[in-house]
């Protein structure tokens, strides 16, 4: 939503890497830990998100499920996704709070063509800077989690900010603050990983042998992590990607294609210049004109 001057940048879209801030202690990496096993699906996080970010999500329709709104929108940075998981005689209601994962290697930032429209702070938060956003939708193509949404009103991309404006003043994100069961924790990434370890141990003792932490290495880890009872099958949770990574197509498009293309164009230009200088122009000779005139005369006669 905005550039927070008091947060230093690690990365800036379509820009050279910013130099590390001078004379400052290294930033502490933050993370939000969502413990899916403790979520009761109350949507207090959704309400808190709308309130803190002053978002106006118009009343829509219900599709008959608890998914409401049915998808992320430019005004809904987070939604609860409800999955009914039946296996044998057992039934589980899996509720996942969906939203930006704040990847350490953000596909949106990599894909963005507008300088400074997407930034990553040194604490790991990935933020969209609306002033610089041109609404091209490349971030949507770069994201492995299907998160950014383009507003039809102002043609700019929106997503969870991890409440960067709260974090900068030492507050937890609004969703974590509002959660009544403390299913959402916020702290340093190291603390959150350690805490997740205890929760996973507890879940395993209760019969969830495959409980684990979702911190996918394919995107360099994330600054929003999940504790899952079925960490061996993340896709159970409303299609959470099993092994997310930036699409290789985006890698080609935003990687080698850029320098190779400019080099090819430059080469073509230089080749033309060298050719003109060494071989010279191709001119019609007087002899050609005479031959042409002779033919005209012959045909005209």
């Amino acid at each position, binding site marked *: 939503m905005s550039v927070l001057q008091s947060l230093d940048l690690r990365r800036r879209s*379509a*820009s050279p890497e910013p130099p590390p801030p001078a004379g400052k202690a290294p930033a502490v990496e933050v993370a939000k830990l969502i413990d899916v096993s403790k979520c009761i699906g109350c949507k207090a996080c959704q309400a808190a998100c709308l309130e803190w970010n002053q978002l106006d999500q118009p009343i829509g329709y219900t599709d008959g499920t608890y998914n409401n709104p049915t998808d992320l929108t430019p005004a809904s940075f987070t939604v609860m996704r409800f999955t009914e998981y039946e296996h044998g005689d057992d039934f589980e209601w899996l509720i996942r709070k969906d939203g930006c994962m704040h990847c350490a290697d953000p596909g949106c930032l990599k894909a963005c*063509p*507008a*300088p400074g429209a997407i930034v990553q702070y040194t604490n790991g938060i990935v933020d969209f800077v609306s002033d*610089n*956003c*041109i*609404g*091209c*939708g*490349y971030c*949507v*193509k770069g994201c492995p989690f*299907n998160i950014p949404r*383009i507003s039809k009103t102002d*043609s700019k991309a929106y997503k969870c900010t991890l409440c960067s404006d709260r974090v900068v003043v030492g507050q937890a994100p609004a969703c974590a603050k509002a959660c009544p069961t403390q299913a959402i924790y916020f702290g340093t990434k190291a603390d959150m990983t350690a805490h997740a370890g205890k929760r996973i141990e507890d879940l395993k003792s209760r019969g969830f042998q495959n409980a684990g932490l979702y911190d996918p290495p394919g995107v360099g880890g994330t600054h929003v992590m999940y504790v899952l009872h079925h960490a061996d099958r993340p896709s159970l949770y409303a299609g959470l990607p099993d092994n997310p990574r930036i*699409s290789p*197509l*985006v890698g*080609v*498009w935003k990687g080698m*294609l*850029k320098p190779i*293309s*400019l080099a*090819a*164009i430059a080469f*073509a*230009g230089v080749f*033309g210049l060298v*050719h*003109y200088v060494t*071989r*010279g*122009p*191709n*001119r*019609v*000779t*007087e002899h*050609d*004109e*005479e*031959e*042409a*005139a*002779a*033919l*005209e005369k012959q*045909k*005209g006669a």
Partner: protein
Amino acid sequence: MTVEAKPVSRYTTAARINHWITAISLILLALSGLALFHPWLFGLTALFGGGQLTRMLHPWIGVVLAVSFLGLFLRFFTLNFWKREDTVWMKNLGSVINNKEEGLPELGKYNAGQKLVFWGQSILILLLFCSGLVLWDTYFADATSVDQKRLAAVVHALCAIGAILIWIVHVYAAIWVKGTLRAMTRGSVTGGWAWKHHRKWFRQEVGKP
């Protein structure tokens, strides 16, 4: 004392207007497209009134190009079918580049290089138009999957670079081969030019009343 041949008509006024609409829209598309392709060139968005306007205008200029190029295609495709002399011409491309055209077969209205430019741009503009629609999120965001959009982005970029390279060849050829440009400005070429470069075509044209 040189005997001057009469100018030979090469393009009608309508064809030239059609060409220049295509040319201007292609240049604008290249500038706005490159602005969104490489961060070094993002400054080109200033020519179009900023990033948002560049993003908004680019696809509409693409529609103009697609319609305009279709006009050129319909005008000229029958003149661009590959002939046996085109293969001979291509085999002697080295001589052509060295300004030694003597001894090459007589050519119709277009030589093999021009035909390759024609077919190359025809295929690339078709691919650019189709992939461009997939990327035109303002109207077609819901029509395709995100993986299709990613593929379209790569195809669009590759084809655009191909089209720009062909454009460079096309423009350079007009600079290199003197007497060519007036075909697209005034619509005619000198008899000598027609004799030298497109003798078979010239023989047909001279025969006409």
